[in-house]
């Protein structure tokens, strides 16, 4: 018997598994595929909009939660975790991966340019984005300030990054402290493989892991950059080699930053690989490519997860279970053609907002995407009708939690790590106090 079975290897599953293991518990991490981190941009969002842009996410949390409470009958995940768990979760993650992977401050957001030239708020970011930081804190200027000159450089062989669109829009944004950037567009050519005209970001990043290949990019960048300019490039500058970006930047000799692009998200992959390595080094027992088909239970307690392993189903016994398998984007939550929503792994009851789940407009939030499982403050899954635990030893974290509009709020990673830490700590304390 394991102490804990964690379902899902996204940010919340990996962080929880590592934390549980570090507390000395045996952990089985069961996951169907690689987690959602690799689709993301490698930043840690805590709270970006409520709906106006948020400068100090933890200071503004209470007001945000009060507004949420008035707007919906479903509590926001942050109402359960509280600010301390966010603070602790983000700190824990940043220390785990180290400053080669994440830098920033959970208390103060910064704005970073996006691949359509918007300024997007986030709390922590990879060091490769540091030269693109625009401060939201009047006391501390960021790398880019009013009048800063940016040259946005596209790679001809990479189609998800258009410098004219990005530079044009970047120059149209009023900066938080007033003024605007100066931005212009330029292009380089860098086929990931010989003769390739249509390269994925990942292939370009892999090519740049090879120090011998970097020179071709460096020469072109040096030729186009003007004195005083900061170079913005798509976030494809190296995959496995965390020093690739720093080396490129040093060779070019100008400030330089990465802008995240649509998936695959190389900065997210770097973070994913790092956390996966840490989990394996900590001897988390990983069951990759394994569907959880259901669970055995008795007397309101989960006893074993049924895992679809080769040849036969494995009934994997554990003392506590953490569902961290993501939301609609992962297939954990499903809406059928009769408009009925369900949780597909354990068949849990869901918190569903009142009224129409989907409305017919483009702008604004869809209530459907706030559907998820309800929990108490220990992240134990409860039936939203009674607020009683569904199973006394089943916890949930991350995208499966009800009540958030993650992509609108820019809160995805904050919720993931805060709920992971909250759930892990509750499990640790419950198992320690129990019959171990």
């Amino acid at each position, binding site marked *: 018997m394991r102490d804990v079975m964690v379902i899902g290897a996204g940010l919340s599953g990996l962080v929880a598994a590592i934390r549980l293991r570090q507390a000395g518990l045996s952990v089985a991490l069961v996951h169907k595929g690689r987690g959602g981190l690799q689709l*993301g941009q490698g930043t840690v969002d805590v709270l970006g909009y409520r709906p106006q842009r948020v400068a100090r996410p933890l200071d503004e949390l209470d007001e945000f939660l009060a507004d949420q409470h008035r707007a919906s009958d479903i509590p926001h995940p942050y109402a359960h975790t509280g600010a301390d768990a966010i603070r602790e979760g983000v700190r824990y993650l940043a220390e785990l991966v180290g400053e080669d992977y994440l830098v920033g401050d959970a208390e103060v957001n910064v704005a970073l340019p996006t691949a359509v030239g918007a300024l997007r708020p986030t709390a922590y970011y990879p060091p490769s984005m540091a030269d693109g930081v625009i401060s939201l804190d009047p006391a501390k200027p960021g790398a880019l300030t009013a009048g800063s000159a940016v040259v946005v450089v596209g790679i001809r062989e990479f189609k*998800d990054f258009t410098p004219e669109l990005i530079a044009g*829009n970047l120059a149209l944004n009023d900066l938080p402290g007033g003024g605007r950037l100066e931005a212009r567009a330029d292009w380089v050519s860098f086929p990931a493989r010989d003769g390739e005209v249509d390269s994925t970001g990942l292939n370009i990043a892999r090519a740049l892991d090879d120090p011998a290949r970097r020179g071709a990019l460096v020469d072109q960048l040096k030729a186009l950059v003007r004195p005083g300019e900061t170079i913005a490039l798509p976030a494809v500058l190296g995959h496995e080699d965390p020093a690739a970006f720093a080396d490129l930047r040093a060779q070019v000799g100008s400030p330089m930053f990465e802008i995240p692009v649509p998936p695959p998200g190389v900065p997210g992959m770097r973070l994913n690989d790092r956390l996966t390595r840490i989990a394996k080094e900590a001897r988390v027992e990983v069951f990759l490519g394994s569907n959880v088909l259901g669970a055995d239970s008795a007397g309101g307690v989960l006893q074993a997860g049924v895992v679809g392993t080769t040849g036969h189903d494995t009934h994997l016994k554990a003392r506590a279970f953490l569902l961290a398998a993501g939301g609609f984007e992962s297939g954990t939550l499903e809406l059928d053609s009769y408009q009925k929503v369900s949780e597909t792994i354990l068949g849990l009851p869901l918190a569903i907002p009142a009224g129409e789940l989907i409305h017919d407009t483009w702008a604004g939030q869809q209530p459907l995407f706030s559907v998820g499982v309800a929990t108490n403050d220990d992240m134990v899954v409860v039936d939203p009708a009674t607020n009683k635990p569904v199973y006394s030893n089943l916890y949930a974290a991350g995208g499966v939690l009800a009540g958030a509009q993650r992509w609108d709020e820019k809160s995805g990673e904050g919720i993931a790590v805060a709920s992971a830490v909250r759930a892990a700590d509750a499990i640790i304390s419950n198992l320690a106090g129990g019959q171990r």
Partner: protein
Amino acid sequence: MTDLSVDVVVIGGGATGAGVARDVAMRGLSVVLVDRADLGQGTTGRYHGLLHSGGRYVISDPESARECAEENAIITRIHTDAVEQTGGLFVVTPEDSEEYSEGFMAGAAKAHMPAEEITIAQALSREPRLHKGTKRAFAVLDGTVDGWAMVWGAVESAKEHGATVLTYHEVDKIHRVGDRVTAVECIDRKAGGRITIDCRFVINAGGPWAGRIAGFAGCHDVDVVPGRGIMIAMNHRLVNSVVNRCIYPADGDILVPVHTVSIIGTTDVKADDPDNLPIPRNEVQQMLDSGAAMIDGFREARAVHAWSGARPLVKDNRVKATDTRHMSRGMSVLDHLERDDLHGLLTITGGKLTTYRLMAKRIVDIMCEQLGEDRPCTTDQEPVPTSRKTHNYKVTHRLEERDHHFQEDQIICECELMSKQMFTELVEENPDATLDDLRRRLRLGMGPCQGGFCSTRAAGLLCTNGIQDSAGATLELREFMKHRWMGLWPILAGAQVRQTALDEWIMRGTLDIDHAPGDENPPERYPVGVPTDSEAVEVAR
């Protein structure tokens, strides 16, 4: 002040108007075609894509069945780039009575329409997803048409014969001197301003809007009742030939494979306003139920987009049922000379896409007779320019094209295999086209991701090519996504929710499109129809 002077103005750039303009031009008369929006944006672009074999009408209307069978062969020949010869089946599903099917073969024979009853085993080997409880199956020569490609083909042909085509030109006045039409006046929706076109004759092919247009000439009480129907595109080709339910025509009785998707249609509900056509959820449920009767597992298949269209059905109390101008069921010609003592105006509505060429021939014959011109129709003789060197397309046509350009060109839309070069060439030819206009010709954003990946690339290309500045491209992107999403929300379920969540993560999460410069929820730049204050659902395919 006049800007143009021609023999004939055709109002309405759907299949009917395009066919009329082509026919007029091929007979050697000068012609201008005007549409208030893009070609095929209204009724024609909002149907399911069936090229009728005639099978649908063998029992209810043998004359229509015979016409369809004849026109099917002609359209297949002259519009090769728009027609896929899929073949079709009429099936008696487990939910249907066999009574209707008893008369099917006899009706087909009477209409001189090729048909053959096949065994259930044969039907299942042709279409493995057919419901296992299917009771009977008849094979016919149904095909599928890309309505936009057909309209563009007809228009290219018309242009080759001298026609002028003005899209985004909305007619709001028809001038008359005494009992004679003399000119048409339009607003230029994109460039602004107005133009006046002098003419000898006007053909009103305005579909559901034909009554409003006739009113501009003072011909009132042309009462066109829009018959609204919804259609749903399912991801993948659940079938590779058209599958019809062998029953009296009813809601959701057909599944049509078109390009990469298959389309189920349709309902028929009287609508008040052809500019505001909702997609009610109860009708969506009806379509899904009907699909499940034809196809095993239909409800678990993935619906990617829904839209609503309006059939233009004329209710005209002044025209008696005995009127000889009622050419065939479904097609109505209003002769305003006879009806309103006005020379130089004919209104044509109704009809079927399959018989668009025949309808055009008939109305242009009448026009020529009224003008005293003896000019025979030759539209069945000559393939349209885009069809001269091609065979009928197959679903794999783009795969074949891509194979020839492998490693030379980027793919901008993976779902529909649309390349950068295809996009760039069309944009350079049509610099004022919206992304939605381009979509209708390129299928941009019409696959499973509904624009999640390709739309940003396309907007970027508009910038790189200097067609739009960044703010303009952002507006294009938002408008495009808005239109895609409006056809997605009413049917959102299953795997498409998962896709949509990913698209939202990309658009709103990673790109933060809502906070890029410009209006988060832009109003329609080229609004069509009478402005309304109501919050009615807008629909765009």
